[in-house]
């Protein structure tokens, strides 16, 4: 069902442009022209974050830190095996996907740990990454309470979701 939605939207828009006698071809070219400029702005942030996340993960410091804060996870009813995933998820999608893969290999997908890991990855977003990319082209230096609020909201969602997984 859902796989039809986006192609259908495309088809509708293109057919509409035909009947409205607008040149979709040249409009598409105009739009896609700005992609390179956008990437020139985004790229430094991409590389800076991913470089740091990779070395942080490979060095084992993330696992060490995960060990240290795992009591907090247990306190909120989350499996302590998922601490590293929880820590890396806001930083990098690719980095945390690697951790998710390891969790599936080690604990299976249909155990409570596996389901909980799916929920943590599936219901949340890369908070720090998105913030850095979105702000890549403006002069904002002080974000005030934006990041703490996003992190608290995401964490609460995960805690409640994992609690529900025990019953659903």
């Amino acid at each position, binding site marked *: 069902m859902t796989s039809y939605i986006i192609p259908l939207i495309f088809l509708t828009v293109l057919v509409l442009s035909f009947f409205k006698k607008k040149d979709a071809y040249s409009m598409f070219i105009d739009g896609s022209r700005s992609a390179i400029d956008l*990437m020139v702005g985004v790229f430094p942030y991409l590389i800076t974050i991913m470089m740091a996340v990779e070395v942080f993960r490979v060095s084992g410091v993330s696992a060490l830190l995960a060990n240290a804060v795992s009591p907090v996870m247990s306190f909120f009813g989350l499996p302590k095996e998922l601490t590293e995933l929880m820590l890396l998820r806001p930083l990098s999608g690719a980095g945390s996907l690697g951790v998710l893969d390891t969790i599936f290999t080690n604990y299976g997908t249909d155990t409570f740990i596996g389901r909980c890991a799916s929920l943590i990855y*599936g*219901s949340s*977003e890369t908070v720090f990454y998105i913030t*850095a990319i979105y702000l890549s082209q403006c002069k904002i230096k002080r974000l005030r*309470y934006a990041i703490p609020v996003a992190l608290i*909201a995401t964490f609460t969602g995960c805690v409640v979701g994992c609690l529900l997984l025990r019953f*659903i």
Partner: protein
Amino acid sequence: MLVRNNRRRARIILNMSKIWLIMLIAAIGALLFTNPDAAIAAMVSGSHSAVKLAIDLVALYAFWLGFFAILEKLHISDFIAKILRPVTRFLFKDIDDETEKFITMNMSANLLGLGNAATPMGINAINRLSAGKTKATTNMIMMIVISATSLQLLPSTVIGMRATHGSVSPASFLPASIIATVLSTVLGVFLVKLFSKIFPDKEGLNERGSLLRQSAKYKKMRGKRNLGTEKK
């Protein structure tokens, strides 16, 4: 006095540059003791995957920006902005039509699970909201928070990965996951609303009869919008 207090509090709040520095120092420091060769290798491989991702993203951005240009010229984006106006009016205060369009396109792309299509629109929206400022306004914080806690109604990456790992029912976590993502968005919006009352913007952007409301620029903006609606 109160202002100074707010300023001091704001400084404690985590920012990316501190986290980045701590992560790198800790990681490289640890690797010096365990495996010094891996330090540069890991950083290079991280940069390498960033370049690969960048190339993927250029393709995706070009594709989606092209599509959005068609939506824009056919005035479909105006139409979507109009449908979602009650939502944007609730979330954001005093935004102009152009910004509203970017915000609604960003939200609809996120709702469809197209995070990468949402990014260009989000950047444009933030650029218009910031307008050379160095400190985030409530509107900008709201924009960041709703994007960072965005509704993930169909986490296709995880479902696909569960399937390849031989899961019996790859989508079994979905009901709980949807509740979790809705809860995180609602809580995020609520907290931003709450904090905007506790720490209001200095320019008074979020209050009735504020400086911006009285300014010539705002009146001009308002006038334009009225003109736009009359035409329709």
